[in-house]
């Protein structure tokens, strides 16, 4: 008996247990003791880690869903169909974590529905709220077949799937437009902080920058998730698809780097990067992690053709992306707002709890639903299906 319990205690289970206990305690502190007890936010720094990590990173890293679904459904790139459901699932869970985070962030969470009925067209945040709500619904719709096809009643199942198929393209189209809109609007939120944000980040094209940077990051997270599912959940996806994603990520990063550089030039902000300030340090960290290292790594054939190396290259992309979003939401603003903000542990613990819940949900969805093709054959590093064409290997 004791031996069984002992063998049940694995490294990751302990980590999950720690995340859930600390996270649930942090949640208790947030909802029953208030902001003062649970955050280091202040009048000078009204937005902190929850916005930076929970919302900006959460939405940005969920960008693959609309990218891949546009590629497959609208552009006819059938090659990516095997990873379509996985990317939609990641986006869906990503948006659910954002919605959960929203309840932590707002001071009066029981009024979460107010933006649905109280409109302010002038407000970028209103548009973000509406887009995220609508797009979460769209993602639910796009993901629904994975659950519906498991229903035991044949007639109901097939009727629903038939109707679903009839309107799918329209919904996908709407989803692509909606997510393009709010990916950029999240950057648009920071247009109003003109004069408070460090010039290395502030730009009148904030929204475009957010849009361009989100897609490679979302793709990178999808590659990471699929690699991990291949390693531990018997998922077998043609690796050449992921390899192509790597190439795509690199291309998108180069495009973003180009516009980021042009933008800095246009704002005459480049010289700030060479000052001895904390902001310049954060800027270079972002440049190295998000642009320099991944663009270099992904240009190497041996990285793109090796699952583990590709995984780590994508991990650097995700880390760099998070650096960028935290720089925008926290580091670039501290001086301008006259604030000194270091997140409280409860802020981090509750964010990590929400993310961990998303990761666990992904794991069990992959195990119990038909998200990715599974096969108990061969080592995943050598698995190649027929050019990725058969959706179910």
């Amino acid at each position, binding site marked *: 008996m004791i031996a069984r319990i002992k063998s049940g205690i694995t490294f990751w289970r302990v980590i999950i247990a720690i995340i859930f206990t600390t996270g649930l305690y942090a949640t208790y502190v947030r909802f029953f*003791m208030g902001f*003062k007890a649970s955050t280091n936010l202040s009048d*000078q720094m009204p*937005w902190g880690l929850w916005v930076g990590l929970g919302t900006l990173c959460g939405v940005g890293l969920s960008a693959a869903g609309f990218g891949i679904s546009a590629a497959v459904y609208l552009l006819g790139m059938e090659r990516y169909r095997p990873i379509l459901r996985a990317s939609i699932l990641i986006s869906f869970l990503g948006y659910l974590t954002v919605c959960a985070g929203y309840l932590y962030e707002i001071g*009066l969470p029981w009024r979460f529905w107010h933006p649905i009925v109280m409109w302010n067209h002038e*407000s970028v945040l209103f548009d973000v709220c509406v887009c995220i709500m609508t797009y979460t619904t769209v993602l639910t719709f796009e993901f629904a077949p994975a659950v519906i096809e498991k229903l035991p009643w044949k007639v109901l199942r097939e009727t629903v799937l038939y109707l679903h198929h009839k309107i799918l393209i329209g919904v996908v189209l709407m989803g692509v437009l909606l997510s*393009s809109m709010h990916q950029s609007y999240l950057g648009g939120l920071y247009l109003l902080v003109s*004069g408070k944000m460090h010039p290395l980040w502030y730009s009148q094209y904030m929204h475009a920058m957010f849009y361009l940077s989100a897609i490679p990051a979302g793709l990178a997270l999808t590659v990471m998730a699929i690699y991990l599912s291949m390693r531990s959940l018997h998922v077998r996806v043609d690796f050449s698809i992921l390899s192509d994603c790597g190439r795509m990520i690199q291309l998108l990063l180069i495009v973003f780097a180009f516009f980021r550089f042009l933008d800095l030039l246009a704002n005459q902000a480049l010289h700030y990067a060479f000052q001895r300030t904390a902001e310049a340090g954060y800027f270079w960290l972002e440049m190295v992690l998000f642009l320099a290292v991944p663009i270099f790594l992904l240009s190497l054939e041996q990285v793109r053709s090796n699952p583990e190396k590709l995984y780590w290259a994508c991990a650097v992309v995700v880390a760099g992306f998070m650096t960028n979003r935290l720089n925008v939401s926290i580091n670039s603003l501290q001086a301008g707002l006259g604030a000194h903000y270091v997140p409280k542990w409860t802020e981090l613990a509750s964010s990590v709890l929400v993310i961990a819940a998303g990761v666990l949900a992904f794991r069990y969805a992959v195990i119990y639903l038909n998200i990715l093709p599974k096969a108990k054959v061969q080592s995943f590093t050598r698995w190649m299906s027929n050019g990725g064409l058969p959706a179910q290997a």
Partner: protein
Amino acid sequence: MPGQKAILVDIKRCIGCLGCETACKQLHGFGTDPEPTLSDTAFTVVETRGDKFVRKICMHCQEPACASACPVGAISKSSLGPVLYNADKCIGCRYCMLACPYQVPRYQWTKLAPFVKKCDMCSTRIGKGGTPACVEACPAQASVFGNRDELIAEGWQRIRSDSSYVPRIYGVEELGGGCVLFVSDVPFEKLGFKPAPTGNQPMPTLTASALGDSPKVVIMGGTILSALYWVTQRRREVALAEAEEKAAINRVKGERSQS
């Protein structure tokens, strides 16, 4: 706009008695201990800058950044002048605090049901023809209340009659102007007035262009995507038809070679 009320603050005349601060706190029942900066229990404070005293207070902008930021429209500019906060709508997102160029709105961080707090220019009092409590308490005519147009004239009157004044009324045009005006005998930059990030452009113009583009982008993006979808579908149909044709030809050829 005619009929708008405003407060004119004369930094030269201010003696730093904190009368305005105390009166405001008394009116709202906050106790009377002075506070160093604005807080959720201090809607106006008197800050010391060198040997000068500068009142900090909501500027009641003509086109408020906070009102344009609020997702639920809880903040609005009233026709009488003050920028008003509707606690019944607020969800507590705090975007107004981030958006305000003067960093005025404060939050009740310690409460379980926190709200945003800021000066409302005593809107109920002035609605009945009264005067804001802070102005009423001022013994030195350093804060005066009245019609905005008349106060601007009064400001210029003070500047013209005394050459020590800086020839500028802060708050008439900065960021599109507001209903709190300042005159001073020391340059405003030296008193902690930050340069306006958008000059005399109201802050909401920063987001208006990005938001205004969105319908165009949506229509264009939608059209392009639909067109691409049509092209890929058409291509697929053509490829399918060609393959069928080929198969038919092959079948005929096969039949012939057999016979």
